[in-house]
């Protein structure tokens, strides 16, 4: 039989088989214990009680009012349950504080590198005398600082903070994660220097030389280590869906990164397929799981109500893992690679609609009807916006994999805009919200200037809207111009200029927003500002205040 046909048939049979296994395991309850697991993130009597440490006391009161009275308004949370949460949060404060601080530093540097890259595209004779600042170096520096600096370390920090909360126990082996995070950050620093001095490996997403990659593989494995130790001592019966995402993500990344960077293994066109197997899996099996884990925890936690459907969330988990892991080939449509590989990737890209739908229904249905909460909760504002962008980016990504669409968008700025919708619109927004929630617990201190949170939000939202909308339009027109053989190539370059300039303006606003965020972050680190209500973990005064507002409502 023809090889291509047999591969396609094999994949088809495998998918059908997997579907039956899936249906069977749903029937046997092998996908967890349904809705009991959904309430596992709450303490007894906690349902209906809002929690957002980033909100001021007034905002918290209004948030609680918007959500209605607690399920059991008179009953306070048991002292023992709160003690466990205090100890859970306390056990991670050092390692999470370190990871998030490093992440914020990388974010600021990454934003500056991105802004410089963006300006260079429409001012090509600006700052050309330095080798390390040439577009071909500062652009990969930007990508790697964002991916491995900001996104990875913030994702790791948030994941480590979530683990003890989800397992209702203290984190065990925090020191491994501390060493892991340090090795990882040293790797990011050395990798940046390597790219700046022209020692890049030459593959997108895999620019760091393999000697430096060792640090990220070991660091990545070490940050996962405390999670496995803590899992063995868990005090919860059900593993909440966030644990599934975090555990799988922390397992996947070191393996992906190891295979992708193994020196001397990959060659020629095979290396191109490997490149995009990695390039898309680092998004689908590393950033997305960490981002979704955070969204799945914080949305219900802030609102004080469980997610819409727990079983749907596990369907989302498994279908994401299965379909997302095979979509990489759509980056090579029209390239010199076997057509069966591309066809499978396009099909799986379309199948991604299933996990995306599962996540969208779950997260949006949980928020639906409580949209007023977005006004009062800074955390929720970022995370819900991020969740909406996840849906948008994923649907857009599926459509972009179709040959007809890809023929226009491939090789254009449209793809760049799409990549930012995913990693910025979704992931970074979710991380911002998570950090606003987490840091008051880590520092035992409130955010000193709540208005800076709003300023950050509006700067990055407006900046990103300009960035995404204009670059998408410019990229699409660029693609159409390149497809028309009567249009000279240079016209496809010239027509993008106004859009590239708009992108710099949007990127400038985003960078400004990040500077506001970083300033606020470090102001909190040095404990600036007045000590207000709510700084202490679920302080009694705050609880009392909530009860007053809820009983008078």
């Amino acid at each position, binding site marked *: 039989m023809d090889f291509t046909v047999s591969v396609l048939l094999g994949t088809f049979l495998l998918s059908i088989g997997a579907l039956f296994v899936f249906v069977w395991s749903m029937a046997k309850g092998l996908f967890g214990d349904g809705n009991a697991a959904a309430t596992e993130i709450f303490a007894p009597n906690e349902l209906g009680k809002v929690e957002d440490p980033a909100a001021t006391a007034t905002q918290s009161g209004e948030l609680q009012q918007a959500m209605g009275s607690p399920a059991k308004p008179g009953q306070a949370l048991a002292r023992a349950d709160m003690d466990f949460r205090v100890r859970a949060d306390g056990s991670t404060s050092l390692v999470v504080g370190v990871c998030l601080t490093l992440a914020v530093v990388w974010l600021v540097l990454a934003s500056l590198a991105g802004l410089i890259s963006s300006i260079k595209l429409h001012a090509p004779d600006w700052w050309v005398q330095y*080798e390390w600042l040439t*577009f071909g*170096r500062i652009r990969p520096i930007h990508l790697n600082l964002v991916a491995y600096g900001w996104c990875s370390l913030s994702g790791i920090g948030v994941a480590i903070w979530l683990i003890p909360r989800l397992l209702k126990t203290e984190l065990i082996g925090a020191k491994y994660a501390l060493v892991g995070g340090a090795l990882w950050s040293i790797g990011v620093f050395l990798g940046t220097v390597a790219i700046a001095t022209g020692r890049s490996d030459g593959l997108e997403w895999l620019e760091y030389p393999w000697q430096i990659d060792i640090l990220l593989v070991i660091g990545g494995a070490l940050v996962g280590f405390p999670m496995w130790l803590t899992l063995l001592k868990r005090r919860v019966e059900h*593993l909440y869906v966030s644990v599934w995402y975090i555990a799988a993500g922390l397992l996947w990344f070191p393996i*992906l990164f190891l295979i992708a960077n193994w020196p001397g293994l990959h060659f020629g066109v095979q290396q191109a397929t490997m490149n995009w197997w990695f390039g898309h899996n680092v998004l689908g099996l590393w950033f997305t799981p960490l981002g979704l884990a955070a969204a799945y925890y914080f949305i219900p936690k802030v609102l004080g109500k469980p997610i819409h459907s727990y079983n749907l969330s596990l369907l989302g988990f498994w279908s994401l893992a299965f379909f997302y*892991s*095979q979509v990489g080939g759509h*980056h090579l449509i029209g390239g010199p690679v076997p057509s069966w590989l591309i066809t499978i990737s396009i099909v799986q890209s379309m199948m991604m609609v299933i996990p995306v739908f599962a996540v969208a229904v779950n997260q949006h249905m949980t928020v639906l009807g409580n949209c007023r909460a977005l006004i009062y909760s800074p955390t929720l504002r970022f995370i819900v916006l991020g969740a909406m962008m996840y849906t948008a980016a994923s649907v857009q990504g599926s459509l972009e994999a179709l040959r007809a669409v890809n023929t226009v968008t491939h090789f254009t700025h449209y793809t760049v805009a799409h990549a930012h919708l995913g990693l910025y619109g979704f992931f970074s927004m979710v991380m911002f919200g998570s950090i606003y929630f987490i840091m008051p617990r880590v520092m035992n201190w409130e955010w000193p200037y709540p208005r800076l949170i709003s300023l950050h939000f509006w700067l990055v939202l407006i900046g990103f809207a300009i960035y995404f909308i204009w670059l998408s339009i410019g990229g699409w027109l660029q693609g159409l111009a390149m497809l028309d053989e009567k249009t000279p190539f240079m016209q*496809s370059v010239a027509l993008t200029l106004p859009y590239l300039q708009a992108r710099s303006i949007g990127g400038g606003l985003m960078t400004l927003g990040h500077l506001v965020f970083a300033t606020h972050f470090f102001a909190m680190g040095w404990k600036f500002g007045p000590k207000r209500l709510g700084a202490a973990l679920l302080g009694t005064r705050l609880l009392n205040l909530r009860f007053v507002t809820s009983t008078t409502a």
Partner: protein
Amino acid sequence: MSTRKSFWEMDELRIVSGAMVILGGATGLLVVMPYLLLKDVRPPAALEPYTSEQWVGRQAYIANGCVYCHSQQPRDIKQAPDASRGWGRASVAGDYAYDTPHLLGTMRTGPDLLNIGARQPSKDWHLGHLYQPRAYTPGSIMPSYPYMFEVRQGAAKPGETVVNLPPALTRPGEVVVAKPDTLALVNYLLSLDRTYPALAPRPGGPAVATGGAKDKP
């Protein structure tokens, strides 16, 4: 405290096994299978391996990130008019027999370069274009690369390559000398020529069927 489930009922086991099986499947599909299929692809007879200077030039191409704006993979004429732009026929796996790391690229902020050596065989053009792209292609947004050259008063030393620039770009008495890596880079660009037929038979050997696996749009 929860009642302990048996080992086989633990969610941890499901996560780890499921996650590994799925990753293994995807890796098999997108990494191992292409490996097995492509490892025996032979270089076409007309394709020369890179010389050591061209290889140095290729490293300069990587170090300066040319790949972030230039692809090296012309598409089939049925999908896009790459061939009409002079970028060459659709490439096949064998064309990249000597290309590790691969430089297929994902952007066409600038044109495809897989056949730039055939399309623009002038060394002077490439050197001058690297020094100031806008002197050769009005409206280009490619960066200029002054750090690849030495500008000095007086004459060049023996063995140095002076760049022949349009008079507007130099001051009187000034010479612009290309650094060794720059010459190597241009040498590499000039070597980029896959204009031979994709399915040429290999003399004295079995036919190189590198075109069979080509993706058709």
